[in-house]
């Protein structure tokens, strides 16, 4: 199984076929593997940040711009 930066085609195909049901065409796989591989690599770098005490960026403040927290 060919792997690009930690993600294999079969893994992604399994997700698209069985979980998201969004079909990836044969011609799209190469680019998709690179894109998702790059993204995974970048997301891993986020682990540098200590998030133990940090909730997500929602404040649930109706009428107060809930998503950005103002």
């Amino acid at each position, binding site marked *: 199984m060919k792997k690009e930066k930690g993600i294999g085609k079969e893994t*992604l195909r399994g*997700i*698209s076929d069985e979980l*998201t*049901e*969004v*079909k*990836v065409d044969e011609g*799209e796989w190469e*680019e*998709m593997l690179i*894109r*998702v591989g790059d*993204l995974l690599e*970048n*997301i891993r*770098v*986020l682990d*540098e*940040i200590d*998030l133990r005490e*940090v*909730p*997500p*960026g*929602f404040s649930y403040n*109706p*009428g*107060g*711009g*809930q*998503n*950005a*927290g*103002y």
Partner: protein
Amino acid sequence: MRGIDLESFTIQGLSELVRKREISPVEIIRATLRRIEQYDGELKAFITVLPDEASKDAEEAEASIVKGGYIGPLHGIPIGLKDIIYTKGIRTTCGSKILADFFPREDATVVTRLQRAGAIIVGKLNCHEFAFGATSVNSHYGTPKNPWNPRCIPGGSSGGSAVGVAASLCLGALGTDTGGSIRIPSSLCGIVGLKPTYGRVSTYGVYPLSWSLDHVGPMTKTVKDAAILLQSLAGHDLRDANSSSHPVPDYLSIREDVRGLRAGVPSDFYFENCDPEVRGSVMKALEALKDAGVLIQEVFIPHLKHATTAGLVILLAEAASKHEVYLKGSQSEAYGKDVKRLLKTGTFVTATQYIKAQRVRSVIREEFLKAFEVVDVLITPGLPVVAPEMVEDSVTISGKRETVRSALTRLMRPYNLTGIPAIVMPCGFSQSGLPAALQIAGRPFEESTILALAQAYEKHTPWHEKRPSIEVPEGSA
């Protein structure tokens, strides 16, 4: 009948003549439609022009003004709307083939507010498909051309809005900004683009790209014009769950004296990999502001470098969720290749990754707010480059190669992630004649402060007075 030279006018200048009844809205709209006819075949700023509706609205505005019913600086002024903003009964394509025949049943809140202020909607402006791209390259409706050089991209996703304003096909426009989509094309086309605080302007009736990152804002020739548009747009909207009830100040009374304002420069992130010509223009702008009495100091935002990834993860996941129904169906074939692949990439973002990105967002937002305890504004380059040519998919900055998408978005995304207001404006021109941009960001809901600083800079510089010379090939007008 005397002709109106729209190039020489701003909203502020023209509205003064309308108020004094020296120019009528009918004359203005005629001149606008003539200019669109003359140049838009080449520039492709508009997807839909509204000659009949605009002419009718102009007649009504004129009749009202003659009777003493002048209502303010947007009365009778031609404004364009990015074509992802819903207009009742008027085609709203979102730059996509999928919505080629979409006629909304109601207006977006921002449209209602503009019309209430007397603005005349002259058309729907071209954009990157579903606002999901930084170039405005559009395989369905043609790619708008940068008026400063037609071989160059105008930037995106609100590319048509920037081209329309820069080429004086309308005097102001609305754009949307999820990862820089107001500020990127404004920077590349040499105009002013304001992304307000998240929740300041309603997004009701605007086709979502990423609910928690989307903003709507003005694109204009000058800072004052941006303030005029913001005044009409800002305010709570019950129909938008993310709309803020924070009071709306008087944006038109812009503070003139900026002496003593404290400006922070986060140089480690924003000036890295920045084209030397752009950097030079921004450094000169900083000097000019210093001369105006602004106190400039370096600031450090520890996790700023992670804003790009956190923002991208949130954007990809939310956009994929919004488009899921199309992606699963036969309509998926109707997307442009670039947008389809971005959307499909988003379907592979997991829930924990999305939430991690939201948590990183909290950290970065807190760090920005901490920086704003010691400074009033942040000043940075708008973009690290001037407009790339359409054929380029990468740029080289100081010997380092980077995709166009990355170069255009990396200095923009932090302000979508944190929701803080930011304005871009021209701060010089490259040797090749393309505009460079300055970006000023401020505390949440302190648009007045960034407008004040932007106007102080504008007053002492000539950049906003420059107009592109638009070449129309013979026979195409």
